[in-house]
């Protein structure tokens, strides 16, 4: 078949870079997203996820590199890109002085949908996110979760080819988060749309995404399906806290084990964790190193991140990049 390659990628990014002054928020990022998939961008706060999304949605101009969204260049044809995409931002962007229906009606109009189609579509999307009975209530009376659902409904209302969700469940409680995940999955089933979502919640990436790009300090450090990313480091992950970390670390490395030093201790990835634990003890005993604690769990994308960077994803949130903090304050 001749055109398969062309039609399967809806987003194509090549060496995309964004500088804020001297600070590179996104550095030479390249990837492709296939039509119909849920593509996750996972990384700590300040990793460059939002900057990346803003470049793909034409809100920020890249410093260098190239990006095609739905076949259009984000720099040369921003108007066409905007027609093809929907976005749900991290921060709320609803008009709280209007009702849910009016917000959607406004949206339909600025995307040029005609009256009949608009009315049909409004009831359709409200139904999909379970807000049909709240259509004529002012948005300022909505809870956080309801507002987010309405934003998602609005994001895909105009039949975008690509829907960007920037931290769709940020700041929501666990139950509401699961609720939103269900709606996103339903959306993928019912609508012909490709979804790109950024998140710093491991569970979100693992539960929702077909493929995940792990991003840190503006670079993609791993990209694959969730299963393959996990398999790559071994199915188990062991955390050990010992007295003399660096000595033990070198010792383990000499045994050809995947080890990385974390803030708490050492993390070891293995395909057979249960059998490795006794080995760790005998090794420690032989070299008179005292083990304080050992824990074994199934490896997650968090461990992939730790193994690649030596840091945890969540810990980063407190120690955001100083440049990013300044930038956020200005807005």
């Amino acid at each position, binding site marked *: 078949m001749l055109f398969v390659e062309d039609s399967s990628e809806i987003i194509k990014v090549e060496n995309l870079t964004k500088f804020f002054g001297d600070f590179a928020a996104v550095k030479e990022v390249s990837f492709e997203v296939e039509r119909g998939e849920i593509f996750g961008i996972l990384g700590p706060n300040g990793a460059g996820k939002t900057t990346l999304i803003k470049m793909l949605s034409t809100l920020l101009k890249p410093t260098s590199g190239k990006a095609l969204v739905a076949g259009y260049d984000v720099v040369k044809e921003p108007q066409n890109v905007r027609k093809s995409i929907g976005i749900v931002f991290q921060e709320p962007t609803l*008009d709280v*002085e209007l009702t849910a229906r009016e917000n959607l009606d406004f949206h339909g109009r600025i995307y040029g949908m005609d009256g009949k189609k608009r009315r049909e579509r409004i009831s359709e999307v409200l139904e999909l996110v379970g807000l049909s009975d709240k259509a004529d209530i002012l948005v300022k009376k909505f809870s956080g979760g309801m507002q987010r659902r309405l934003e998602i409904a609005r994001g895909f209302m105009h039949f975008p080819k690509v829907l960007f969700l920037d931290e769709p469940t940020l700041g929501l409680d666990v139950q509401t988060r699961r609720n939103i995940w269900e709606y996103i999955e339903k959306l993928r089933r019912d609508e012909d749309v490709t979804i790109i979502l950024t998140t710093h919640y491991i569970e979100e990436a693992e539960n929702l995404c077909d493929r995940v790009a792990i991003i840190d300090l503006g670079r993609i450090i791993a990209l694959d399906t969730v299963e393959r990313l996990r398999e790559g480091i071994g199915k188990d992950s062991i955390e050990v806290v010992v007295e003399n970390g660096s000595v033990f670390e070198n010792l383990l490395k000499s045994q050809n084990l995947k080890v990385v030093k974390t803030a708490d201790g050492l993390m070891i990835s293995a395909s057979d964790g249960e059998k490795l634990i006794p080995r760790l003890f005998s090794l420690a005993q032989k070299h008179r190193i005292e083990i304080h604690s050992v824990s074994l769990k199934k490896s997650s994308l968090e461990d992939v991140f730790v193994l690649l960077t030596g840091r945890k994803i969540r810990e980063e949130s407190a120690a955001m990049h100083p440049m990013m903090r300044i930038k956020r304050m200005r807005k």
Partner: protein
Amino acid sequence: MVEAYGVYILWLRDLKRYVRARSRIIGSLGMPLFFLAFLGMGFRRAQIPSLPGDISYIDFLAPGVVSMVVLFTSTFSGVSIVWDRQFGFLREIMVSPISRTTIALGRTLGGATTAIIQGFLMLAVSYIIGFRPDPIGMVYSFVFMVLIAISFTGLGVAISTLMEDIHGFQLVINFFVFPIFFLSGALFPVKEFPEFIRFFTYFNPLTYGVDGMRWSLIHYSEFNPFIDFLAIGIFSIFVIIISTILFDRTEVG
């Protein structure tokens, strides 16, 4: 590039929000009402030298206070784009396919419309207080209100592009809108100013707006009404061009 439906929908949104904010509609008429009532009572027997004896102070003041309402409401609406930016809604508009020029024009016309409605409400209130304008002159006053409203909504939009956040709002009101108001001849004829201050009033577009309003409503003016019309008219066109250019350049990160 301007999309008419885009202008219309932004205008419609402004009107919907205006109609719903009843407390703001009434609240913002409070200060001008007290200006009119108390200044009118306090100075009712005062004779202003440059004012012909047959014009009562309340008749002189009312067109000025109506202009004041239009000035404040329109500047406020223009600058309120900063609120949209703060509360995120501006982003929803900025990622949509409609052009920046459309957005700036839609906001300007929406804000101007609400300012004109406020102006007519104030006119009605002043009627209750005892102001009796020429009914036919109200048609002319409508033209001047439109020009004042567009000028200062546009100016508000232009200022909003230079503001980082809503904290600058008070600054704009106190150091920009109030001087424009006091230097416009809304409260007393600009002829009463000392020479060097009067000089500034000639560069104040509102001076011509107020004078045009006064000519329309009570048939008294300091300048030729045609000059009033030209001055505020040219200024409004100039402001629209400047504000769309400035708005076109803004980035919403």
